[in-house]
């Protein structure tokens, strides 16, 4: 079976290699590419089908919101941790994502672990469902808020990376 070289992985590995050596030189880049090819040919990963379209404005919005959420999430957990005599009430909720793609499921799960309130406990790819633990759910309203939060996160991600067809499949209208 002829294996195709996964050039995006090679580029990423070469970038990591150059950063590790800390110097951009021809020798480092050539060595990085060679290491990248060797690693991807020796240990090939299942190709991740990416059929989306990168939308710069969507990516900017996703990253900006992520940065804000990361700070808010960290401070919230820090406050709960340092509040004396307060024991948070947790909950494990199921959120069925709208997109069926493994890639977006994975990325949404990663993002949701770092932003306020939630940590991923389990994921089912067949149903596209994420199971998340909410640190401080307080009441049923808190649970619904967390659920809405995850779906918003997914929507931002889809609006940054998904193609028009994938957006339509997920039931989101295509904005121009």
């Amino acid at each position: 079976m002829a294996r195709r070289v996964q050039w995006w992985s090679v580029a990423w590995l070469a970038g990591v290699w150059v950063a590790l050596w800390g110097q951009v030189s021809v020798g480092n880049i050539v060595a990085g590419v060679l290491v990248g090819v060797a690693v991807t040919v020796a240990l090939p990963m299942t190709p991740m089908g990416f059929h989306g379209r990168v939308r710069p404005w969507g990516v900017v919005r996703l990253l900006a919101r992520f940065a804000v959420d990361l700070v808010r999430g960290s401070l919230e957990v820090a406050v709960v941790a340092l509040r004396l005599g307060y024991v948070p009430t947790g909950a494990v909720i199921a959120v069925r994502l709208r997109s069926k793609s493994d890639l977006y499921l994975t990325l949404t799960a990663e993002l949701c672990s770092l932003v306020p309130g939630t940590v991923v406990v389990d994921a089912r790819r067949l149903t596209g469902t994420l199971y998340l633990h909410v640190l401080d759910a307080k009441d049923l309203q808190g649970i619904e808020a967390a659920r809405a939060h995850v779906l918003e996160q997914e929507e931002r991600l889809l609006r940054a990376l998904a193609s028009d067809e994938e957006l339509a499949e997920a039931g989101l209208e295509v904005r121009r």
Partner: protein
Amino acid sequence: MSAAWWTSFADAAAAVCLLGGSFLAFAAGVGVLRFPDLLARMHAVTKPQTLGLVLVLVGLALRLRTGATVWALLLVVVFAMLTAPVAAHLVGRAAHRTGRMSPERLLVDELTRDAHTDDD
């Protein structure tokens, strides 16, 4: 603005980042100690810990200001952000599947509800 002004500005910013990062790492430690169960502890390990590490490394980069070091620090940040959620997910999943959690502390548990309906 003179070069000396920028140097002291970068030093001051570095100090703020280092102190902020240390505070978050401290809060994460307190959280791990105080939170009631494993799943709650994973929150402390993923969020304040990651941002704390990022802030400490940003502080270091601002203070050291050499190309090679900054690249290496950037790599650490990227890998910390990529791996912390995965690690938390695996620990949380293992805990849930082996029943090492306290159901009475959970408001709802939709994973246990769904666990018997489908498996993949």
